[in-house]
């Protein structure tokens, strides 16, 4: 694929004093993809995004965004990028409309010119356009921030945890909007700590402690999950997880909703666990083989 049709990161390193924030991050994202970085807080997502939008300089490595070098051509990169930082970063004392007008102006455009891009999103908050941005609900703030990031018709949209702190309904709406933007050909890079959102991306990279552990489509990540996964419950859940962690054949055990998800070392079988738990006087024992979801994959990778 030609370099101006994709974003390529090669061997990105970044440290803050003694802390290694990013270690050898490499990926490539073709134009028009909805790409997700999934990882817990402190994994390095925000640092990576700031480097992507040229706010920070990497210590080592190169990023090429559609043919532009993130270091050398940083002004051009800024022009074609729409960035939504993790924190709500609009002017709280300015009204919805004033915020949007301001961002349109500093990018040298007008609301009218690119209204078609934001119509679906902005029309939902337009009834409140005279309201100060600080007085909007969490979901509406995100919609406004997205509108502001879109107003200059960016080719690339970088969204740092856009759905953190937003209610479930608004989150769902937000992802629908991203789907629509993707149809317009905009490349979207998004980060989230929510595993359930991973399946909504075209491809995801699982990131932890500044390293990418796996990059693939959500379906492939799930299907590459090797070991059988068991969901276990009993009447005494707390004792159950402690006991499971003392079981020598346990590879991983973690609470997942009402169940404990368990993987075993390759040699062990489900019957061994049942036997072990019966000795520990567990009653109401229930054990099922289940198919893993993204979160299981992530937990699995974390243990490794």
């Amino acid at each position, binding site marked *: 694929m030609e370099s101006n049709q994709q974003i390529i990161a090669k061997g990105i390193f970044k440290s803050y004093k003694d802390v290694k924030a990013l270690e050898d991050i490499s990926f490539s994202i073709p134009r028009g993809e909805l790409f997700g970085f999934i990882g817990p807080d402190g994994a390095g997502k925000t640092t990576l995004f700031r480097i992507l939008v040229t706010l920070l300089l990497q210590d080592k490595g190169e990023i090429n965004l559609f043919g532009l070098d993130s270091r050398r051509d940083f002004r051009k990169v*800024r022009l074609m*990028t729409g*960035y939504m930082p993790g924190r709500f970063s609009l002017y709280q*004392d300015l009204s919805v409309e*004033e915020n949007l007008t301001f961002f349109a*102006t500093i990018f040298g455009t007008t609301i009218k010119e690119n209204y078609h891009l934001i119509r679906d999103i902005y029309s939902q908050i337009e009834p409140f356009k005279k309201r100060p941005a600080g007085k909007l609900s969490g979901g509406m703030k995100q919609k406004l921030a997205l509108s502001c990031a879109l107003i200059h018709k960016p080719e690339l949209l970088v969204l740092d945890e856009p759905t953190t702190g937003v209610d479930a309904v608004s989150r769902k709406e937000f992802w629908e909007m991203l789907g629509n933007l993707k149809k317009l050909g905009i490349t979207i890079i998004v980060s989230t700590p929510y595993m359930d959102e991973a399946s909504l991306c075209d491809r995801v990279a699982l990131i932890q402690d500044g390293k990418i552990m796996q990059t693939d489509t959500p379906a492939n990540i799930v299907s590459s999950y090797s070991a059988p996964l068991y969901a276990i419950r009993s009447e005494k859940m707390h004792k159950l997880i402690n006991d499971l962690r003392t079981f020598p054949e346990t590879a991983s055990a973690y609470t997942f909703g009402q169940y404990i998800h368990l993987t075993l070392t390759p040699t062990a079988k489900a019957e061994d666990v049942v036997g072990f738990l019966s000795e520990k006087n567990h009653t109401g024992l229930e054990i099922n083989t289940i198919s893993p979801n993204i979160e299981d994959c992530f937990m699995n990778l974390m243990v490794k």
Partner: protein
Amino acid sequence: MKRLRGFIIKEFYHIFRDYRTMVILFGLPVVQVLLFGFVLTNEVKDANIAVLDKSKDAETMNIINKLTSSGYFMLNAVLESEDEVEGVFQEGKVKQVVIFEENFAKTLKNEGRARIQLLADASDPNTAQTLVNYTTAVVNTYLAEKAKSEGKQLLIDVVPKMLYNPAMEASYMFVPGVIAIVLMLISSMITSISIAREKELGTMEVLLVSPLRAGQIIIGKVVPYVFLSFLIAATILLVGRFVFGVPINGPLGLLLAESLLFILLALSLGILVSTVSKTQQTAMLISLFALLLPTILLSGLIFPIENMPLLLQYISHAIPAKYFVIILKNIMIKGTGLESVWFETIVLGGITLFFILLSVLNFKKRLE
């Protein structure tokens, strides 16, 4: 250009939305001027005066009557010769002596112009100034009444002379001083806070990734505050002029131009502060301790520089407000023009240029 305009409009929204800060910005200087002024000014009521009337005619009698019936003055002594003047002041019996020249009424009638000499005890400079102002006012009212009834324009020159403190240092000092303090405070602190706020709230991240250049962000931040600071400087000058009668003897245009220069200087300092502070609080503390306190203590506003230890005298050369106060004093009180303050102007201009360059260079296009 359009981008810059959009940015400036946004800054004005911030300023006008935050009405509490606005009240402080305009209230503080006024309160300070009034406070300084009234703390230094004694209420003048029934002040003891003496009269030396070398003419003893109808006009002088009338004027003396007007003075004593005004409620401001009490006639304490009637003097016969100038030798007695020193005595009554020394005894502390009177605050002011009014001297009528010989043939007062005759001169007034024939030449249409006569002289009254005022001697005021300026060891208490504010009271002295107030007494002189009151006396002048009474005499002028008398003349106005006379002009009305007789249809003749007459002139009486009231010639005040300040004894013991002819330069009246303390009394006028506070207005130039307050202008310097307030401009330093508002221009530097408010600008630095407004930039630090963008960093704190995360909006700076978005501004930085926008195509706005460092220079545009800085100009956008500075322009609204130049405007605001200028209004405030004018407010202080007006309050000083009309509440306390602080004169503006020199050219007004030059005075305003010098104020503008000082405002720019303070703003560039504010931007410099903001480039090193990440939060609004840090910005406030730095401007308070690094800018405001030296301004108050070392610029000669409160403590005369000549009385300071040698080391502090040297340090005071680095305090921009010192030069500004010298300029203000020269223009406002001594009434001189650019020829007497060119050196200070060049110093201020140089410092301003230096700090503006430094802050533009120091302004980071990235987050680190």
